[in-house]
């Protein structure tokens, strides 16, 4: 089995890697590039824990082959914060306690960032449907949705709501 050489951009950095044809982008991120922030929850594109942004679109990295990253620009959860400056979505997740075990959180952070990159003022319903591809078993989604809506307000320059119920 000879490997394929792939050239891509991940979190703003040029990256090259070797992978086998059948390795998914998730396999490559986790096992070849040591970017273990993206998680495997199902391997079949149903849970969203592996969400990354590829050329501006949220995708399940378990449904993308490693070789398909050629020439693309990929953002993983590791690329959402800027150094030690958290993205508003990340900060609001913390303030609203929008995570319990934290396993689904990377996928939600990436998906929520992609939502707010595209829609600066989503409604609760739009937010819920956008995030319907990310499964969470711990939170019941309530605090996640509040955190995303609050982050949107911050990004619009408005006064954020208080996290206390």
């Amino acid at each position, binding site marked *: *089995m000879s490997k394929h050489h792939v050239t891509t951009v991940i979190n703003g950095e040029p990256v090259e890697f070797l992978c*086998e044809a*059948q390795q998914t982008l998730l396999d490559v991120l*986790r*096992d070849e590039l*040591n970017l*273990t*922030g*993206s*998680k*495997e*929850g*199902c*391997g*079949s594109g*149903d*849970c969203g*824990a592996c969400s990354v942004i590829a050329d501006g679109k949220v995708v399940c990295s378990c449904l993308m082959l490693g070789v398909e990253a050629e020439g693309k620009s990929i953002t*993983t*959860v*590791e690329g*959402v914060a800027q150094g030690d400056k*958290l993205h508003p979505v*990340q900060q609001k*997740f*913390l*303030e*609203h*306690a929008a*995570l*319990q*075990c*934290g*396993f*689904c*959180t*990377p996928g939600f*952070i990436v998906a929520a960032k992609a939502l707010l990159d595209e829609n600066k003022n989503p409604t609760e319903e739009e*937010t*819920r*449907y956008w*995030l*319907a*591809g*990310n*499964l*969470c*078993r*711990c*939170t*019941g*989604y*309530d*605090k*996640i*949705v*509040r955190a995303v809506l609050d982050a949107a307000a911050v990004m619009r320059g408005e006064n954020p709501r208080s*996290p*206390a*119920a």
Partner: protein
Amino acid sequence: MSYLDKATLKVVGTRPIRPDGVDKVTGRANFGADMVMPGMLWGRIKRSPHAHARIVSINFDKALALPGVKAVIAGGDFPEVTPDRAHVGAAPANLRDLSRNVIARGKALYEGHAVAAVAATSQAIAEQALDLIEVEYQVLPHVMDVEAAMADGAPILHDDMFTAGVEPKPTKPSNVSKVVRFAKGDVEAGFAEADIVIERRYTTQPVHQGYIEPHACVVSVGADGQTTIWSSSQGQFMVRAYTSRIVGADIANIRAIPAEIGGGFGGKTIVYLEPLAYMLSKKSGRPVKMVMSREEVFRATGPAPGAIVEVKLGAKKDGHITAAQSILKYQAGAFQGSPVQQGCICGLAVYDFPNALTVGYDVLSNRPKTAAYRAPGAPIGSYGVESCIDELAEALGIEPLKLREINGAKDGTKATHGVTWNNIGYQKTLEAARASEHLKAPLGPNQGRGIASGYWHNAGGESSAAVHVNEDGTVTVTEGHPDIGGSRASMAMMVAEVLGVPFENVRPVVGDTTSIGFSASTGGSRVTFAGGMAVTQAAQKVVEVLKQRAAVIWDISPEAVEWRDGKAYPAGANAGSFEPLDLATIGNRSARTGGPISAEVQINAQGQGPGFATHICDVEVDRETGHVKILRYTAIQDVGRAIHPSYVEGQMQGGVTQGIGWALSEEYIYDKNGCLENPGFLDYRIPVASDLPMIDTIMIEVPNPRHPFGARGVGEVPLVPPMAAVANAIFNATGMRLRDLPMSPPKLRAAFDAAALPRAAE
């Protein structure tokens, strides 16, 4: 010093950001599958394709010939766990059965049962090697349904199983491992004096805990047996103990490190992979990593049982219930130990029944061995009883909430299982429901409202904790409980409160089995209670040490020192006039005043307070599609004291959501061969964000005086009421009573169609 008065608290009850939060929102936190060890091999499991089969032979020749394969194992590589060694410490698991579940001996007892395993230099080679392992099976008849498994002539899973709790002792083997029974008063007399008696039968399907993180571990066994286990679990001490017993190693030779855990809900209170990875590592001489696929998680772990619950209630016209009877038959899966006893107890616990009888059957069948799932047994038992209470209310013409107000448990009520309630919050949950905005909100067409209550006893048990004052005055608290839902923040908050320092100065650590004393698992809603008790006691001991050190510095008696707001003060003018000493000052001089400043505490916590809840659910039913939409949900629960309110709300919202999934869409679907048809999240449908509204929570604080801060366990009660709350709401919306879970669209459509059919002559 009493911390029960909320008004005096400065940290407990606030909502700081959890200390492990930044790692989790940036992807830095390390879960079970995130570990890599040098020289690591990948392990994979060969699983039975048959629901019930004798394993005639296993041939590894072809697999071993594949380059890259370094070790293979089967059941014969593991020691026999004799009945006298089936239990370790106070842990509940039967390790003889667990060992035979982890890898089959002689018989495969369910589709997916592990039969062999292989370790190879890459995942791809390990996968290939599985196909090269040749297993010869003799397929046996299988049985899946509870009542079919109980019937005469059913295929028997274990020839050495004779039903316990039955007199005279049976001589023929059975799939019923035990019958349990609790009684109060005289039910026959109670039913005789009732004005109305109703009898109903409810059925449920197995559901999985549904944690998003599949099981994963890396195990490294040295040539001398010194072992490191990295795994995500609900208890690193459990991992250590269970692995040691299953592989035949000394406990002291195993260091179990708790990875961050991506959900458990009870399903990770036992082991599946660690003993297999241990044996593969021992044989190959290299670390072995094993990660389950989602399909394996469904085929071979958990679930919560499917069940049949038959409930009979008798009442006077005025609503007083004179007798209650419940018969519960729970699937245990391939080995004994469904939580049927808890189902019996908890279903009835919410009420003051003058006469009651509950009987439970633990029934084996060719399904994966059931595992704990959030208040194990209680959600099913309460689904039956709370639905039947609703049906009784309908029959009597009494409002469902009123029926509970008339019959609900109070302080002094004696429950069917013999406990007398003291200091419980159930009545307050009913009062809060009565007073709620939700109850008054108007409903539109095809909309309905349902109410249900629930109970869980919560647990205490063994916990250890250590509090250290560092040389710069910051504090480290080490505890032994994997943090599933934010508990380490609460530990740090309680320590900060006792020491009188800001939360940010206290750093909690979940230690591995070599870093802290024995701690029982994260489960039973016990961590904030028992772990919290341990960290509080350790912090209190540190305060005594700090006072002694101040006394040394000031050269006065320790009795003349008091501790207040994070500083040592002279106690009164007679003690002398000294500047207060803070933690940084005392910490910096620790070597000169006596040595490191530290305390470690080991306890077996008693006095856990039970939890009660009442839930209100509004639904809208689409008569054309049978789809049920949750419009509004309010969960009311007595939580004792909410140490960190956001995480208590989170437990309530999460449990409610699991209950909604159990009610409406989650189920295992098996084909006629006993093979699972929906082992994935596409067809095993758990609730998603677009299914739900915001979930409102009302936390009632009836402090538990046996805990320094008044805490009660909160995590499990929220899963107990939702199924009946949803079912009762569907009845209120449509007039149709569904008694079979899940209440999925095809079932509602069938009920609508049946209702529309003209009645046959009666």
